[in-house]
Structures are given as structure tokens and as C-alpha cells.
């Protein structure tokens, strides 16, 4: 006699999520990466990198909640970043799944938590949550991923008129190393204001969060931003 103390465990939630999302993503060209744990991805590779939707679960006794992120890797950006880090930060090991863009309904809505989906206690709840994910993907997720296939569009978002000082608590992030990647993206996008963007980046990184000023030595190639600029110049 087995008594189920959970209405919906993570594993049960995973099975049902697959049931309600797999066909949806398959039609869009995404394949599920099989995993032993409850976390998994729907991935779609293309010649520029890959798009992915990562799904996980939070315990919410007696049920579970979906936690997800929409991801994009642009190989050109990540490979240049890896080359830069070979010299400036050799302790950072290149990762084939390092990401260039990451967002979710929460970040787009300005809610910065992974606990933003409704609780799921039964199959109907899972269907509802999956419906929310589908709705988000159709209205925002897929269009955003598609838009950023053009690196100029990504550059426009972060380096354009509404110049970002950070990607922290913004609608999407660059998967870490924002200061470096924004410069790489500007360079790849052939942004005519490249030098200005570099200058602004130095200014931002010279302002300590406690309000004090830090003298950033722009000629010190052991520092990541000067080396990034130097490296990109060698590619011209």
C-alpha cells in the first residue's frame, strides 16, 4: 500500500510537462535533451549556435512549480570571448553551452526570481503552466530569439539609444561577462559608435558601486577590457 504524500513530485511534473510541451517544441524544431534528473532542455541548433528552453522545478509542497529560462548561444560571440579569456582569464574554461542571451517571463516582466510560476498539484495544473510557457514563447520567446539572430538587433538593444549600464535585472542578460560581451557584440555588429561604446564601458566600470571612483588603466593589457579591445583590433 503506497501512500502518495505529494500531490505532484518533480518527477511526475517532468513527465507531464513533456506530455504537454514536447510536441509544441518539436513543431518549432526543438528536440528534448534527455536527462536523468528533473531538469531538461528543448534545444534547437542552427549554424549560428543554438536556442534552448531550460526547464526545471521547484518544490512547493505538496506540489511543484516550473522554473524556466529561454536561452540563446551565438557561437561567434562566445568563441571570441573564449579567445579573450585564454589570455586575460585563463582560469575560465571554455564551455560549449556558455550563453549569449537568457530571459524568461519573469525578467521580461521585471520580476527577478525563479519562483514565478503557479503551483501545480495535478495534471490540469501542469497543463495550465505549460500553456503559460507556450503563450510566452509564441508572443515573446520565439520572436525575441529570432530577432537576436541578427546581431545588429541585439547590439541595438544593449548599445543603442537606451544604453544599458548593466544587464543585471534587465529584460534579458548576456549570460555573464556583460562588459566584455557588449563590446564584442558591438564589434561584430560593426556598430559605428564602437569607440564610444568602449569609452562608456570604461566609465561604467570605473564607478564603484559604493560611489567611489576607480582609475581603470586602459593601457594595462592584463585587464579584461583593454585586452578585449586589443584582441578585437588584431582581428580587423
Amino acid at each position: 500500500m503506497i501512500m502518495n504524500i505529494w500531490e505532484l513530485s518533480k518527477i511526475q511534473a517532468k513527465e507531464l510537462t513533456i506530455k504537454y510541451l514536447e510536441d509544441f517544441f518539436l513543431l518549432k524544431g526543438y528536440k528534448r535533451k534527455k536527462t536523468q534528473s528533473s531538469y531538461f532542455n528543448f534545444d534547437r541548433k542552427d549554424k549560428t549556435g543554438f536556442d534552448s528552453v531550460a526547464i526545471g522545478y521547484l518544490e512547493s509542497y505538496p506540489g511543484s512549480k516550473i522554473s524556466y529560462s529561454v536561452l540563446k548561444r551565438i557561437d561567434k560571440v562566445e568563441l571570441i570571448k573564449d579567445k579573450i579569456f585564454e589570455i586575460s582569464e585563463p582560469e575560465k574554461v571554455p564551455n560549449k553551452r556558455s550563453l549569449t542571451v537568457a530571459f524568461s517571463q519573469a525578467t521580461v516582466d521585471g520580476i527577478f526570481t525563479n519562483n514565478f510560476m503557479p503551483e501545480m498539484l495535478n495534471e490540469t495544473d501542469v497543463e495550465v503552466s505549460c500553456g503559460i510557457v507556450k503563450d510566452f514563447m509564441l508572443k515573446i520567446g520565439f520572436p525575441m530569439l529570432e530577432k537576436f539572430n541578427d546581431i545588429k538587433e541585439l547590439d541595438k538593444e544593449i548599445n543603442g539609444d537606451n544604453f544599458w549600464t548593466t544587464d543585471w535585472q534587465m529584460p534579458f542578460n548576456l549570460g555573464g561577462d556583460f562588459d566584455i560581451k557588449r563590446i564584442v557584440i558591438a564589434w561584430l555588429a560593426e556598430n559605428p559608435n564602437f569607440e564610444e561604446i568602449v569609452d562608456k564601458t570604461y566609465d561604467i566600470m570605473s564607478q564603484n558601486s559604493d560611489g567611489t571612483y576607480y582609475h581603470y588603466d586602459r593601457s594595462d593589457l592584463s585587464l579584461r577590457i583593454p585586452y578585449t579591445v586589443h584582441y578585437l583590433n588584431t582581428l580587423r
Partner: protein
Amino acid sequence: MAEEEEVRTHYQGLDFIQALVEVKEATLTLCNAAKVPEKYWDDKDAGYAKSPFHGPTLSGIGDGAIAELRDIPEMVGFGLEIATERGKAGELWNAIKSITPAKIKKMALGAAKEKLDKYAAGGNTMKHEAGKDGVQIAMFVSGAVKGIAANGKKIAELGEVADALENVADEALGQVSKNVDEIAGKSINKALKDGDLDVLDVEEIAEEIKDATTKVDKTWLENLIKGKKYGQNVTNKYIKSLDDGYFTRASKEFGISKEELKGMVQIEELQINIGNGNFAVADNVWSKKVVVEGKIEIHVYINETKLSAGTAPTKRQNELFSAAKAGSVNITSKSIREDVVSILPKDTKLIIKSIIKTNGNGSVSDFYNISKIY
């Protein structure tokens, strides 16, 4: 001496967890160094007498017992999952699934010496042999567990621990049994065979088992489940809802303003690499990005929820606390959880500024007390 008697005699006084730890040592050595530790096969080795699994004894259980191994006891899979690293356990489990009784019969621990030559050859031959030996040892352990299970009623303590382990695994699956004897861990077996057991859940709970200094019994298990319920209560009722009273007290312990804490990125169940090869799961994490002398830093504040004031942190939590206090620069978010990277990029270096504990009064209630750990 009868075979069962021999097994029982050998295991008397041995702690079950200790046996599993031995398995970990064996399997990791196999995978990392591709070498069977001598103490497991060389009866001249000083460690042989202390080894919890003696090949000749267990392989000599007889054809009947070997045939039963086709239905590999749930404890083998569970034992491997909790006793080995996740990746290695998965590899071994896949190998175990392909094993047939006929193959098992051909395995003799005495042949291990011959294999050493093949290891020396390196390459795929070495890997293949190492894999086979890993399976072999797993099978010996399965025999050991089988022996324990068969003698469970006679060896009260081991039987009780085995029952307790099964209950914990069931809890990890979201199930608990009213009648331990009846289910006998079948759900674990099925989950492992189907590949749908949440390995991470088991790992976390396994850590708690290994950390348990007190007797692993049903009361301990009940408290484990209550602790999970209480943690969820705190998260849903106070943290997610930005409860003013809770945030006033938490921010005071953290030494920051309530408004600042409320404005931070909030992450639940964050897996954190401690920097020593292990990871801990932080119940609630608040984080902010700062710029310090031209570098970006992520500062984090952590809450751990405990059922009562007397509930001790797990070993991994203590390791995390120590690393934080020591100002370790090797603490990072764990990359496997890509579902959280939209709010915290993977492999981000974390600087832990403060840790608090929210504890209950031993029951699943609205009571909470907050104290500073670091």
C-alpha cells in the same frame, strides 16, 4: 560455515553507510585511476580483512542467489546513486542494466589481477575493463545487500537502516510507504530502471543520510519530511510574498536595509559549488551585482531553513559556511541548472556576504525565528 551465516558474520558490526562509502571509494578509484583497490581482491593486503565486501564469500553465495541478481535489488541502484558521484553512478547503472546472470557467473574477483595488465595497456581496453570491474564490484555489493536483506530480521540494526534508506528514497520520489515490508523499495527499483529517479534529489538526501550523526530511524525520517514542509511554508508564506515582518528581521540579521533586500534577485533552491568539488543547495538566496575596482561581483545573502533551532546543518552546508567565512573566491553557481540562468548566469562567482537561519519550533507551523550564522 553456511554461506548465509558467513555473510552475516562478516557484516556483523558493520555500519551500512560505511559499506556504501567503501563502494564510493572503490568505484571512484576504478573510474579515476582505473585500478581495482587491492584490498578488495588481494587477501594478503592489510585492508582486505576490513573490506566490507569479500569477493569469494559473496560470489560463492550460489547459483540460486546469482540468478536472483537478475532482479537487481533496489538497494544496488540506490546504494550506487548515493555512494558514488552522479555521473559515475549513471554510467555504472547503465552497465549494470546490461548484465545477465551468465555474465555475472563468469566474473571472478580473482581475475582482477589479470586485468591489471589490460589497464596498463590503456585506451579503450583499459576503460572497458575498468567498466566491467565497476560492474563486478557493484554486483558484489548487490550480493552483500541481498545478504543483508535476507537476514534483515536477524540483523536488526542493518535491517532497520535498510528500511530507513528505502523510506528516504521513496520520499525523494514523492512517495512514502505505510508498509515498508510490502513495497520493499520497488518504487526505487522502478524509478532507477526507468531512469526517472531525480538523481539530484537523492544526492541531497543521501548527503543528509551520510551526515546523520544520530541513528537513522523513522523519527529521523519524519523530521526530514517535516523539515521540507516547513521550508516550503517559510518560502511561500514569508519570502515569496515579501512579508514585511520577515524581511525586517532578516535584513537586520544580514546587516542591510529591508528595502535593499526586497529589491534583490531572489532565487530558490540554488545549487552552489563550494569550491572543494562538492555542492550545497541553498534554500533561499538574494543576490545583487556590484562593481568593485573595475570588476563585477555578485554578492549573495543566504537563508537556510531548519525545522527547529536544534536541527544541525548538513555536512555540505557546514562546508559552505566555512568557505564563506574564509572568503573563498571559488564559490560559484552550479551550471547544471540552466533554468535559473535568466536571473543568475551559470558559473557565476558568488561572494557570500551573510548567512542566516530561519528555524521553526519542531512542527510545521507559522512560527519562525531568525538568527545569523555568518
